[in-house]
């Protein structure tokens, strides 16, 4: 057996590895810390009324009510935005793969998607607002949905594109060799193969949409009622958290923490659910 000695390089190795593990613990720990903070402060104020009622008169001064309006509003907003983004995004992802491939244009489109992904939500919000002014739309569920769709589109297309990329090339070539047109390959082969990717993309987009505050701030407005039409303004959970924390009343702020906990739980369910579902669906794809 060779005796190990502490040479300089071995010391550097140990120090580097130690630092890496320490950083890993810090990053993982910060997730724990965030969840712990939100749970500890949010749970005491989380009552059934919070989830099942809309704000009553004087809610923001500490009177009775809940944030049902915001929960429903957020589900509407994110659901609508995701649906719209999927309608546009799915053909886009298919076209990118089947027709454009790695051509010059494909690279431009991918580049612009990446760039769109990087544009902050506040800029989408400001852009959405100018668009609304231009076409005479007031702050409403519809406007919020459109802006969220813009925000979610690049993420969803990217997620789908990533999955299509992993698809074996043979599969596509086999279908083409049998005389399928590219459209048929896209609809019958690629779409089936990318089903886990589509689900992941939907949940990823939904999660981003439901958590975003800056884009809906000017476009969806805020109201204590549950929206009954696309043209009515709507509340959203992130803004509910934000507005409740902005009041000077501790009781209302507590409810803000509880609302943050509700939002966190929704997002966690989506994140874990997407992992589960796509794992399950992945079994049915050809690798």
């Amino acid at each position, binding site marked *: 057996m060779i005796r190990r000695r502490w040479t300089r*390089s*071995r010391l*550097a*190795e140990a120090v580097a*590895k130690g*630092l*890496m593990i*320490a*950083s*890993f613990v810090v*990053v*993982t720990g*910060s*997730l724990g*810390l*965030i969840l712990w903070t939100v749970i500890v402060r949010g749970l005491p104020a989380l009552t059934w009324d919070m989830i099942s009622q809309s704000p009553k008169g004087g809610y923001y001064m500490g009177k009775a009510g809940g944030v049902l309006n915001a929960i429903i509003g957020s589900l509407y907003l994110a659901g609508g935005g995701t649906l719209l983004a999927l309608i546009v995004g799915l*053909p*886009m992802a*298919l*076209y990118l793969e089947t*027709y*454009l491939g*790695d051509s010059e244009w494909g690279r431009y489109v991918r*580049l*612009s*998607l*990446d*760039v*769109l992904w*990087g*544009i*902050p*939500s*506040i*800029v*989408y919000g*400001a*852009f959405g607002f*100018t668009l609304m002014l231009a076409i005479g739309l007031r702050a409403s569920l519809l406007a919020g949905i459109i802006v969220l769709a*813009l925000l979610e*589109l*690049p993420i969803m297309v990217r997620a789908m594109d990533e999955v299509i990329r992993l698809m074996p*090339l043979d599969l596509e070539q086999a279908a083409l060799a049998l005389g399928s047109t*590219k*459209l048929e390959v*896209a609809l019958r082969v690629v779409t089936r193969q990318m089903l886990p990717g589509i689900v992941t993309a939907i949940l990823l987009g939904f999660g981003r949409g439901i*958590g975003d*505050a*800056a884009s809906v*701030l*000017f476009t969806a407005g805020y109201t204590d009622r549950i929206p009954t039409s696309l043209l009515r303004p709507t509340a959203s959970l*992130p803004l509910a958290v*934000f507005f409740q*924390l902005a009041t000077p009343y501790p009781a209302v702020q507590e409810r803000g923490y509880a609302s*943050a906990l509700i*939002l*966190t739980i929704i997002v*966690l369910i*989506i994140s874990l659910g997407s*992992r589960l579902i796509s794992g399950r669906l992945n079994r049915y794809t050809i690798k």
Partner: protein
Amino acid sequence: MGDQEKAFGIKGLDKREDRPKGRPSVAVRLKQDQNARRAFSIIAVLPVFLIAIITVALVVRAWPIIGTHTLKDTVFGVVWKPEQGSFGFWPFITGTAWVTAVAMLLAILPCLLVSLYLSEYAHSAMRSAAKPVLDLLAAIPPVVYGVWGLLAIVPFVQNTLEPFSKRWLKGIPILAVNQPTGFGILAGGIVLAVMVAPFIISVLYEIFSTVPDDLRHASLAVGATRWQTIRNVVIPKVLPGIVAGIVLGASRALGETIAVLMVVGNVVKVPTSVFDAAYPLPALIANNYGDMMSIPLYDAALLGAALVLLVVILIFNVISTLVLQRLLGRRWT
């Protein structure tokens, strides 16, 4: 279409009797393919078009302020008094820069180390355990980060870091404690650092995965330790990618609104210390958009702020994405 029909005799195929009932003919299928190609291609131009129209819309709406004020008055102006018609963005631009710089300073080293750990050291079980953690961290909404900042980071800065700095680090201007509230650049920077960490880590991890194993094996085979391999082989090989990943992370940090807004203090002033309050551009837009209509030029100024943000982020993004695209390559290259 016509030429194709002639060349392949598709018309003839159409009349064949052995085509299964109810299936469209080849000519119809080719037609469908052509139409789909056309329809899809319109959709695919959408992203490019969207970037252009967002930029144009902001330029048009910000034009009143660009047209009437000089660059010196707006971008480099320090006076922000909308009622009197002076719109100096400098306090906000410097505020954004400070918060982003602090966040990146805090985030870069840990992110680099974590991504190296995951790509070079960790077992595959560890890797698959780390992924959900990073995904969750990325999935937590900005406003929840803001709540965490409010409840945990601001008190931490106020009760621990500010007294520490007052006591031990006196005389260093950028660490001076002028108003010990806890709200300020450092709190914003810490929250932001945690927010961008999962993004930077996943980009860097992807970059490190592009280094061929042969290079690592060659280095290890001549007796280098793993750390020496990382330092002398892996990192030099992908250095441009690392820089690009960090720039991309910084551009994420630049535009973050709600989480930063909640902890950064929002005072219109050019900051001089990390404990100072600041007022970043996104916070400016978010806080004032509601009541801007009553004051002339106010909305133009706010959209000008959005434009400044957009232009900086576009530049950051395009350059770093080009570098990354080249590095990460594509399936057929």
